[in-house]
């Protein structure tokens, strides 16, 4: 029990021990739920990934699941796709989010409407968005390719061509998620003190110079947030991919999260959990060092 000087104010002390008004047992209900349904599964996943497992009994088999995982080309490509998907969505959200935020903080007509319309997809069901775009991206009858053919362009089979499937899903992810990135950038840009822009105007700076030397460096914390959030989301992404391609055609848009689900459905619980551990290691290996690096850059500013 700490915080002694403060608790001395606390009037009548019933028991012999000094009590803080901020009882530690307030942690308890949340801690139980969190520990039982999040920490225990996370910790035990390391053991179960080393077993042949049928929920009811598990048999220790060492690293066999990992060997299977990394020998199977379809599973290894899932690992690679996860990284590609996360990097593409994150990169596009940074670039488009920043561009949109600059546009939507300028004196543009219809600003409120534009902000709403860019943000609304964030709130819509991912499955609904996935199914809608699956239809819009239909290679023959889909609205996208029909519109392109009016312009004389032969659109690709967005979701049916193995070389485009993952990229197409990533684009839909950006369509749905760019509103949040824009919002974070708008908050960042709005918090830049007006003096900078006034000083720049006195110096006769162009719009590009304003952007390059004021907005870009001072919106850096927003950039870090957008990168971290979209990487975390991108690495774990499952619903959109599952709604649009189920990892197909073949395994060309499979990511770790969809591999986990497929192995679970097939009854390979140990292998599925090994996939979960691989995802855990991938996320921590990317996010923790990156957030430390980005935070250290932030202090330098």
């Amino acid at each position, binding site marked *: 029990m700490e*915080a002694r000087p403060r608790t001395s104010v*606390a*009037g009548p002390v019933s028991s012999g021990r000094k009590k803080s*008004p*901020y009882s*530690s047992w*307030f*942690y308890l*209900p*949340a*801690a139980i*739920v*969190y520990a039982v*349904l*999040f*920490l*225990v*599964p996370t910790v035990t996943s390391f053991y*179960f990934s080393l077993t042949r*497992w049928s929920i009811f009994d598990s048999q220790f088999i060492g690293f066999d699941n990992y060997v299977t995982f990394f020998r199977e080309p379809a599973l290894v490509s899932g690992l690679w796709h996860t990284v590609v998907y996360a990097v593409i969505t994150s990169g596009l959200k940074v670039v488009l989010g920043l561009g949109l935020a600059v*546009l939507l903080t300028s*004196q*543009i*007509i*219809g600003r409120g*409407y*534009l902000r709403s319309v*860019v943000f*609304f997809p964030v*709130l*819509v*069901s991912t*499955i*609904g968005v996935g*199914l809608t*775009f699956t*239809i819009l991206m*239909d290679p023959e*009858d*889909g*609205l996208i390719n029909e519109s392109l053919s009016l312009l004389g362009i032969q659109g690709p089979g967005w979701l049916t061509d193995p070389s485009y499937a993952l990229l197409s899903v990533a684009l839909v992810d950006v369509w749905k998620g760019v509103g949040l990135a824009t*919002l974070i950038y708008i*908050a960042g840009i709005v918090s830049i003190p007006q003096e900078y*822009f006034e000083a720049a105007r006195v110096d006769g700076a162009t719009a590009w110079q*304003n952007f390059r030397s004021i907005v870009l460096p001072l919106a850096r914390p927003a950039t870090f*947030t957008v990168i971290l*959030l979209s990487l*975390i989301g991108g690495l774990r992404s*499952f*619903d959109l991919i599952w709604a649009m391609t189920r990892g197909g055609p073949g395994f060309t848009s499979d990511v770790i*999260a969809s591999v986990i*689900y497929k192995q*679970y459905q097939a009854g390979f619980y140990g292998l*599925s*959990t090994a996939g*979960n551990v691989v*995802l*855990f290691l991938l*996320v921590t290996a990317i996010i*923790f060092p990156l957030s430390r690096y980005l935070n250290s850059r932030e202090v330098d500013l």
Partner: protein
Amino acid sequence: MKSRNPALSIVAILLSIVVFLVPFAFILLTAAKNRQEASRLDFTWPTQFQFVQNFVDVVQARDYMLIIAFINSTILTVASVTIMVVLAAMVAFVLQRRRTRWTGLVNFLVLSGLIIPPAVVPTIWVLQKLGLFRTMPGLILVEVAFGLSFCILLFRAFIATIPRELDEAAIIDGAGPLRLFFRVVLPLLKSVIITCVVVQSVTVFNDFVNPLYFLPGDQNATVQLTLYNFSSSYSTQYNLLFMDILLITIPPLIMFLFFNKRIVAGMTAGAIKG
């Protein structure tokens, strides 16, 4: 950057219509078409509007599955968000007010909850052991466990702005920890609670992955699961599929219309802290 730029504005508005409004208009129009017209996947005005007919068909499909799903989703959302908010506020209050040797650990766990992907099959194993697998209470607790971190960060930042003198006054008046929290602090959190409730309601309502894993089976389906199942069984009835998508989009739309500012505040605040 101060001068209005009509040309740029017009380009931006036109682009926004093509990129963001057309997909929603497509949903709306297809949901009003008859079966043959919808199957052509065209972006055209329906020759005759079958809006009501499609609505009735979707609702009646598979023994009113959609109604059951909406009830399930409502129970799931209301219960999990209520529990989540109360538990998170309690944690955030003590976490912000009192530094002990636990503080560092708690902060670490909160961040971990945001970053680490949940281990799926081991969670099923735990639920199985507790007799909660394939049950609504089990899924509710899972949503609580996964949603706590975001709420705690949001609340902690807000509680930091409430002066400690207020607590001390209440304590001098003889309030115990429970009275202090539920009677004094919690009412002051009203605005941030609304934000948290709105953001998490949308998240839980739209959640697909957790119901898929932890509450399989038709009689328990949530709206996102029914939508997904419709997509395979109604692959030839796009008018009904899009009516379903439309109905599932309405609750978030209502949230958006009424709480736009709150959602924006919550998402940016939570995000900046994350």
